[in-house]
């Protein structure tokens, strides 16, 4: 297998030890379906141009600068070198500033993962850091300039190697406490909880990313075909929410359903057997994907 070129080369430094490492992108995010922007009136493709908001004249890329609005309509202009001067000099070093227990890490801060592999001569120190962290069930927090931005990187052992995940800054994340603050504090106990746990256990399985396929593109192709042929596609009907009074009944019926289907489904087909009773009764428009 051909190994991709490293996206970054540098060092991890912990307790006076510097380990030469190479960093590689883990995930490439691919745009699946590309729509083009058209002019509805003419049906032609459109281009994007940048114009001065007052004069309407086109502004070439080299004439565009960053501006920070200090008062209404009053800007401080920042040239690229001004922005660059705020970023510390890159010393190509991921300096470990602290270790944190893995089970305390708030994963909501995660940005992008990178594989970290030892560069030549770096293997001994690399393995020590990896094995030490694994034994202590901790990950390391380091800071460095990556791709011209100062980043905090969470470094953790992963099989034979290390994974470095860039983290979002505190002000880029809303905490879950804040997000869920207004929710009522309902604790579910007794029969309802037991029934729901039973349903969950009958649906026990695993996530297999390799088996997952994005069906959106083919669904859009289907939509286009229907439009050309002048057919209407069946609309998805909003399900009716379970009313609090009916919740226990819905759980009992669900539990009875899954128990009846004891031989577990082997594949992850999304068409759900659980609602098939209802579906047969109420509509014939339900689609099997």
């Amino acid at each position, binding site marked *: 297998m051909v190994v991709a070129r490293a996206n970054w080369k540098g060092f991890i430094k912990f307790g006076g030890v510097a380990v030469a490492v190479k960093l590689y992108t883990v995930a490439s995010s691919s745009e699946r379906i590309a729509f083009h922007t058209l002019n509805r009136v003419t049906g032609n493709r459109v281009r994007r141009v940048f114009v001065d908001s007052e004069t309407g004249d086109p502004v070439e890329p080299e004439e565009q600068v960053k501006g920070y609005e200090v008062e209404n309509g009053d800007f401080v202009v920042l040239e690229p070198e001004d922005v660059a001067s705020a970023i510390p000099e890159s010393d190509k070093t991921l300096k470990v500033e602290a270790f944190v227990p893995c089970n305390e890490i708030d994963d909501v801060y995660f940005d992008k993962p990178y594989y970290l592999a030892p560069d030549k001569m770096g293997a001994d120190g690399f393995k020590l850091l990896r094995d030490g962290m694994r034994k202590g069930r901790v990950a390391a927090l380091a800071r460095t300039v990556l791709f011209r931005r100062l980043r905090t990187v969470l470094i953790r052992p992963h099989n034979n190697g290390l994974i470095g995940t860039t983290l979002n800054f505190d002000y880029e994340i809303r905490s*879950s406490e804040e997000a869920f603050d207004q929710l009522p504090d309902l604790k579910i106990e007794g029969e309802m909880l037991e029934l729901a746990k039973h349903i969950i256990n009958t649906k*026990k399985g695993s996530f297999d990313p390799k088996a997952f396929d994005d069906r959106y593109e083919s669904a859009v192709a289907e939509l286009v075909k229907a439009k050309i042929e002048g057919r209407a596609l069946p609309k998805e009907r909003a399900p009716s929410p379970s009313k609090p009074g009916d919740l226990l009944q819905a759980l009992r019926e669900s539990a009875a359903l899954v128990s009846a289907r004891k031989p577990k489904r082997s594949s992850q087909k999304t068409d759900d057997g659980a609602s098939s009773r209802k579906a047969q009764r109420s509509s014939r428009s339900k689609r099997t994907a």
Partner: protein
Amino acid sequence: MALRPYWKGYLKLSLVTCPVQMTPATSESEKVRFHTLNRVTHNRVMSRYVDAVTGKEIEDEDAVKGYQKGEDDYVILEDEELENVALDNTKTIDIDVFAPSDSIEWIWLDTPYYLSPNEPVGEEAFSVIRDAMASEDMVGISRLVISRRERAVMLEPRGKGIVLWTLRYGDEVRDENAYFGGVDDSPSDPEVVLLVQQLIKKQTRHWDSKLVADPVQDKLLEIIEAKRKQTKRPAKTKEINPKPAPSNVINIMDALRKSVEGENRRGKR
């Protein structure tokens, strides 16, 4: 401040259904944001669409999505039409599979969202699903169409709510063996590992969001403030004697930060 939901729909477990809403965990509101200016006039630069054939500017409402059927052959698709795409999970998160909570490697986590009940009528059903997952130490796996893609998603109970992660596609994650296969697996000297463990222990701290503070943003605000003083001209203001800016740098920083927040909030286009 209540955020506008990014997505609204239903959460479903077998015959139990509740209305839910979803907001991104990431937020731009406190980030220093810049506008693009024309260097010569200092006016803002705006993006406009022009017709590729006629060269004429077009109105925003005339810009529409086109699905490419062949060379120079497009079918126009309105947003409302796209919403009718025939997938059963554009409006419903039907939890189909549950997996042990530690079985999904962090590497698959893509983007986090916060999921919560959307109407009081759904609060109890939502809590049932959340608490059952929590007490079994399981996460839910489902499918959801968002941002014009069908995504695998993971639902994880968190406090009074649920964190929903989009998961990466199988073909997006590169095979680690290409990178780690060459690392020799001979064991490290146990004595030295012990030493490393001691060092690690000394430097181990509790997780705290202060660990992900950003010194660069503060520095940027300082640079902006310095430039502002330097270039202070009575340009567009009619006031001849503007109030002297307080010399206390901390106050200025606070003021700037507040203005960032205020400005970003209304700056959403």
